[in-house]
Structures are given as C-alpha cells and as structure tokens.
C-alpha cells in the first residue's frame, strides 16, 4: 500500500464511495483507487474487515444481488445512520485538513 492511510480514513472513503449508490467490494476498491487518481492504493483485502466493521456499527447494510454480468455478488449500501456519519466525518476531516494547513502554511 502506498501512503499509509490514516486510522479511520478508509472508513470515510468507503462511506463516501457508497454515497453514490450500492456497490460490491471489488467496485468499492477500484472506485477508491480511481477517484484518488491512484494515490491512495488500498490493499484490497483490508477492505473486507473494514466493511464488516461498518456493517456491525450499522452505517452500511449488505445484501446479495446480481451484478451486470449476471453473477451473484454481495452489495453494500449506505444506511441513514451511515449518511449522517459521512457528513459528520467529512466535516471533521475538513477541519483537520484546515488545521494542518494552517500549521504548514502560516503565511497564507
């Protein structure tokens, strides 16, 4: 994995990805990679325990569905609770980024 992901960031990325619509594990992994223009390379295996953890907390839900090429796959979708979490965590992330930026570039 390039660039250690901050603790909890993977969760945020998953939530963000699912905000668009339901997706299965493979799609989520590639979506994160693609959206970050390959900077954030998730070890795809680590995605699954994270998905399990989020589901445990009730932020996402899973169901078995049929994918575009007619294969059964496990889909994940955001729950209302997860949507709230996403908003909250996004604003906290922005705060942190702003804070760090203020430290790094005080002149601006």
């Amino acid at each position, binding site marked *: 994995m390039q660039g250690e992901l901050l603790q909890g960031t993977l969760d945020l990325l998953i939530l963000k990805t699912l905000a668009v619509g339901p997706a*299965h*594990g*493979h799609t989520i*992994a590639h979506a994160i990679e693609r959206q970050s223009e390959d900077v954030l390379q998730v*070890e*795809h*295996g*680590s995605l*699954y*325990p994270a998905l*399990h*953890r989020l589901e*445990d907390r009730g932020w996402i839900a899973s169901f078995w569905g049929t994918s575009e090429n007619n*294969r*059964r*796959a*496990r889909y994940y979708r955001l729950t209302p609770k997860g949507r709230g979490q996403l908003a909250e965590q996004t604003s906290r992330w922005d705060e942190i980024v702003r804070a760090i930026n203020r430290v790094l570039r005080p002149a601006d």
Partner: protein
Amino acid sequence: MPWSRFFHRGRWDEERTRELEDYLARETEDNIARGMTAEDAARAARRKLGNATRIREEIYDMNTLHLVETTWQDLRYGLRLLRRTPAFSIVAILTLALGTGANAAIFQLVNSLRLRPLPVEKPQELVWVDVDTQGIGRTGWMMSRRGRMTQALWDALRREQHAFSQVFAFGLTKWNLAADGESRLADGMYVSGNFFGALGVRAHVGRVLNDADDRTGCGTAGAVLSYGFWKARYGGNAAIVGQPITLDGYPFEIVGVTPPGFFGVEVGRAFDVAVPLCAEPLVRGENSGFGHPERWFLDTMARLNPGWTVETANAHLKTLSPAIFAANIPPTYNAETTKGYLQFIFTAAPGETGVSGLRKTYASQLWILLAATGIVLLIACANLANLMLARATARDREVAVRLAIGASRLRIVRQMLAESLLIAACGAAGGALLARWVSAWLVAFLSSEYDRLFLDLTPDWRVFGFIALIAVATCLLFGLSPALAVTGTNPGRTIQAGGRSTTDSRERFTLRRALVAVQIALSTMLVVGAVLFGRTLRNIVSVDPGFQPDGVMVVEADLRRTRIQPAARPAAHQEILDRVRAVPGIATVAEAFIPPISGSVWNQRIVIGGVVQNGSVNFNQVSGEYFAVLGVPVIAGRTFDSRDRPGAPKAVIVNQTFAHRYFSGTSPLGQTFQYEPSGQGPQPDFHIVGVVKDTKYVDLREDFVPIVYLAAAQDEQPGPSLSMVVRSDLSPASLTPGITRAITDATPGVSLTYYTVPGFIRESLKIERLMATLSGFFGVLAMIIAVVGLYGVMSYLVTRRKVEIGIRMALGADPHVVVRMVLAETGVLVAVGLVAGILLAIAGSSWAQSLLYALKPWDPSSLSLAAGALALVSLVAAWFPARRASRVSPAIALRE
C-alpha cells in the same frame, strides 16, 4: 455484537469466502481484459487482494467471543480424549457418580427435612406456637406423638391473642379403618376448622374443611383425604366424595381431597385423613382431650398479622401467658406441679419449614453421614487426581512443545480442566440419578408399618445447586493439581529428555505419593467409623434385656366399639385372656399394659415412709403370668395370683434395681409405698409381694431402672383396651387368624392389632442399624478406592524403576530384596496415612460419642482393628507390583 452473530459465525465465514472468491474472479476478468494471460491474471488478482485466509480470520475474530470459542474447543478436545480411553473414563465417572450420589442423597434428606419450606401459601408468615415449660416438662397424659398443647390452652390462646390473623391446631392420631377384626391403621389429624384456610390449601377434589365444619358437638363430621391416601386406597376415584369412611368404627363423610404436594405440616410424616377437631370427643370417648386440661394432644401453628414479627409475637404471648395458664389449672395437679405449670410461657418460633420430630431424632446422624459421604468424595477426588496426573504425564511432550512455541500456561491449564469438568459433570449427572434412588431407599429403611415416614424427595433448586457445586469443586480438586504440575515443568528439559525414558519429575511423584497417603488417612477415618458403629450395633443386640423376646407376640384389643360397659370390663378382659389361652399353639398369655420396648413409658414419683423419693419410677400393670410369658425369673416372694382381687390390699412386684435402690440391705417383701400425692385425695398403699429380675423397659441401651408392676386384676377402672403378651413356638402369621377368631366370637366389634416383641426391638434399633450399615458401606467403598489408588501408584513406581531394578538383578540382587524394597516404600506411605487417619478419627469421632454404645470413640481395639484391616489390604495391593518387580528380566536394562 449480537449473540446471533456468534452462533452463525460459521455461515458468516462461508459468505466471506464467497465474497472474496467473487472479488478474485472479477479482478482476474479485468486483468484478462487488460491483456494478461489467464495464469498471470489470477496471480495478479491474488496479489492485489492480499492474504485471503488472514482476512477471513480477522473477520471471524470480530464475530466470536474468545472465551466461549476456546472453552468450546477445549470441551470438544476433552471429549475426544475421554473417548480414546474409555476404561479410564468409565472408572473415573463411576467413582465420581458414587461419591456425588451418596452426598446428594444425604443432602436431599437434609433438604427435605430441614431446608424446604412447606408447600403452602406464604410459608414465611407461619409461626409455630409452643409452650416453654422452663425445663420442668409437662405433667399429665401425652396423648399424641407430639402433644404440645391442651385443648383448653389452645382455645384460650386463640381467643385472647392479637398477633396472628389465624391460630390453628392439629392433633396427630392413628385411626383404625377396619370396622372390626384385625385393624388397619391410618395416620390421622384432628384439625381446627381454620386449618386448611389458614394454610391456604385448596381442595384437589371436593372441598377442604372450614370453620363451619368445626362446631362443638359435631359428632361425625366431614373427612378430608390426602392425595397419596386417596390414590392408594381409592385409586384416585373422584366419586368417593360423599361416601363414608370408617375411622375407629365411626362413619365420616368424605368431603374432599387435598392437592398432591400437601402432606400436612409435620415434615417427615404424611397424614392420610383429617377430620374436624370437634369430632375428637366422640371418637376418643372417655379418653378425649376435651375438658381435661392435663391431656396434651394438640400442636399449634399461626399466621402472623401484617407488621408483626416472631419477636413481637413472642413478647405479646409472654404477657398473655400468666392469665391463661392460671385460668386452666388441671384439677389433678398437686401444689408443686401447679407451681411449675404457672411458670409456663407461650412461645412462637418461625414455622416456614414446618415442624418435625425427625429433625431432632436424626440431626447428628445426618450430619455424620453427610461428613462421611464428603470424605468418600474426597478420597475419590484424590484417586482421580492421581489418575489424571498419570495421564498428564503421558502428554508431557505435547504440553512442552506447545509451551515452547508460545502457548500460555493458563490456556493449557484451562484445556486440561475442561477434560476434568467433563468427567465431573458426567459423574454429577450419574450421581443425581443415583441420589434419588438412594434417598428413597434410606426413607424406606427408616420407615415401618407402624411408623411410616414420608419425605418429599422431588429435587429442587437447592439439590441441583448442591450437585453443581460438587461438580465444580471436585473438578478443581482432582483437575487443578495435575494441570499445574504438568505445565509447571521446563519445556526445554522435557523435550531434551525425549521419549526414551519417562520424564516424571521427582516433585510430581512426591505429589502422587502424598495423594495416596491422604487417601489412606481418609479411609482410615471411615473404616474406624464403620468399626465403631458396627460394634455399637453388635453391643446393643447382644445386651441381655432380662427377658426372652423370641416367640413373644403382642395383641392389642380395642374394646371401644364393643357394647361392654365399664363395670363389665374386668370380666371381659378375663374372658378374652382365657379364650386366647385356648387357641392351639399358644403356650402362655398375660395382660401387659406396657409391652417391653414398645416405646411407651409410664412413670411416676413415689413416696416411701412419707418421703418423696428422688427420680421417677417406671410402672407397668400386668397379670400374674406376665413373668412366665417373658421368661423373667421371680427372685423373691411370689407373682400375682387369685389373692390379688379388687378390694384386697394393692399388691405390687418390684424389680431388683427397685429393691436395691429403695430397700437396700433389708428385704423389700411386705414393705409399702405410695404414689406421689396428686390434687385428688389420699393415695393407696402398695404392698410389695415379690421381686423379679431386672429387665429393660423402653430401650435396650438404657441402664436397668426401677420398675413397679401393679396387678391388672386390681385395676378398678380398666380402660377400653386390653394389651396382651403371648408366647408361642409358632410364627405370628400362623397364630393371628386363630386369635382374631377366638376374640371376635366372644366380643363382636373388637378391633385387634398385632405386634411382636422382636419387632419392637428391631424398630428401636433402626437408627443404630442404619448407621452400622451405611458407615460399613462407606468404609468398604473408601477402602477399595484407596487401595486401588495405592496399587496404581506402586505399579507406576515399579514401571518407572524397571531399568534400575533390571540393573540390580543383573548385578545379582536377590528377588526378595526387590520385593522388600517395594513393600518398604508401601509401608512408609501406609504408615503415614494410618497415623494421620487415626488422629483424624479420634478428633472426629468425639462428636459421634453419643451414638456409640459401650464404646469409647478412641476404643483401642476398634482403632487397631481398622488399622490392621487397612494395613492388610494395602499389603496385598502392593504385593502384586512387588512380585512383578522381582520378575524383571535383567536383560531389560540393556534393551531400554
């Protein structure tokens, strides 16, 4: 985490596997689409995903509870181990089942007798009202097994008290169900009208008695049957309500049946029939407790008013007492008795668990038996610990390897304990089954036709809790030390030692020997107990009672339902005696008011030369042939004869002890004495006409006491019953039909009850017989377990030292020396165990002293007998391994 997730963690894992496979398939497809070969595509996909097994494990961990998961694993592993060695498992489980079963059986009795609340409404509100006689004791006639209260006192008490919402009374009795001929007895209760209502007992069929049934002068009122009696006698037929039942010849209408769990309020007995108290004067007639404030026949219980406690109730009863006792002084009391009576105080005690005479009778026996079974269980645990240690030793290398590669000691100990827990749980389950059977057997052992015991033995949470506690305690006792011993070794050394020689450490072997010594010590205790109780029984049985009990039968004729008037009774008695004497096969017959060892006592204080003598004297009233029937020699003077008519001077015969105590040095013949004066006029003079040999009166254990025999023929007011002793060489069963016919022909309506004097003696010894039987059984059981343990350890010792012994033999050692070496090792163990055991036995048996007869707890011959027996069987057990040792081939030293 929800529990459902835990139980479905296997299915979850499957889903994850499919999900990961799905990922790999998609990634591979994508890769192929990018132009890779199929093989490269699959490899790249796997690399992209990472370690799939580790991912699954990570998720599985999130789903599981570690403690539960590993415990479950341990149990399954333990089960596999136990299944692999069925012989060990069966022996271990059986040993524990025996130990647990014996403990649980005795505990079940303790529970039923002492701990379980009565099966009635709000038993915690019940109190049991008694009279504190200030150590003076009640004077008068104790009419029932538990005569605590007179009718007059109960009546006054219930009218004047405020502490209780209900005060209710019951009088225990036995009724004859047969209309005439040979009697059939039922356990009965005269109950106050509010009895069932106050207890909150509702009818199973029909109705229970109420206040309306208990009216003064009610005659034959309604009768309520117990569930058990209803099932046994009427087959549970509901149509019997409204039908009559004959009690002592009076027909009562059956009004209802009580529910299955209700046995009365006296724990240890069950009632058959209850009738209202108001029927008592009719049934008992001139023997009624009504209008006789010196006849004690009732028990009283009460339900506390809200806000009252046992303490406040006691204070209240204390203030009421002086007036109530002063208003109900029996006219027959003399000044001294009255003075004592006026000091009596009503008391209240918690009645939640009912009342019970058995509690006191069997108190020390039950605790001793519980202790004995506890010791058996300890021995079984020590033995199992030894076996487990041997098993654990076989797993030494496995444990060492696991420790070396990082398993925690706690984890391995837990795993080994799981195996012990399985054994303990199976043993406890077996014990629970055994316990029901054993405790039922014990109740049956103590029960007899004339003294029926009843204990509700359905196990409740206390019994199950006790068994569970035993299971956990035994598991820790026999499982923990081997587990700690095995995991406590240095894994490096164990692995280095390899499989060539056994790796048993010195400390561990010391532990095994210590366990055997403990077993020997504990079984010595039990064997000493068995010898003491066994000899006690033998000592009592071989006591000379002063009469010849064999072949003596007792016939009790109840004449209340005959039409014989009181004035005609003496003649009627004479006719019955003559008719019985004429029955073929009967050698002699005599009247005897109190047959020997029957449990009845009649005692009184006497006055000689105007001086009231210390201590009371036992009385009896017999006809002249009594001494011939019982084989009691007349030493001086004569027995009763035709001179001793009604109206003639009152003749009495005394025993040797009486003569010696009151007329020491002079001849008692011709001397006179009187009863202690009562409140009613002067007492007649008794003229001593004969002296007979001493006999036991109520109990074989007693010392000879003074006895006075009055002449039956001089009784001016004989009661409505006649009790006879009969000597015959024929069996009682073959005689009874003839006697019944002979008596009923002359006096229709008579009802007869038969006993035998040997039966009375057996009955009086049942506690001693129980203790001897059970302690003997436990002693033998303990000895077997301990000796098997000893054998196991000595065999192990020989196996362990085979090489050493082989070398000794190769160097020319005499086989006898080898045998002696093994036996010497045994001797040390046994000697240590015996000494400790005898010290323990002496310490423990001092509280059994009261149960022994003609023996000291530290009786040297009993101690040496027990020690000798144990030493002998130990020697035999050690001899087999010793002989095997002496036959070790010297070549073994080379081969191993």
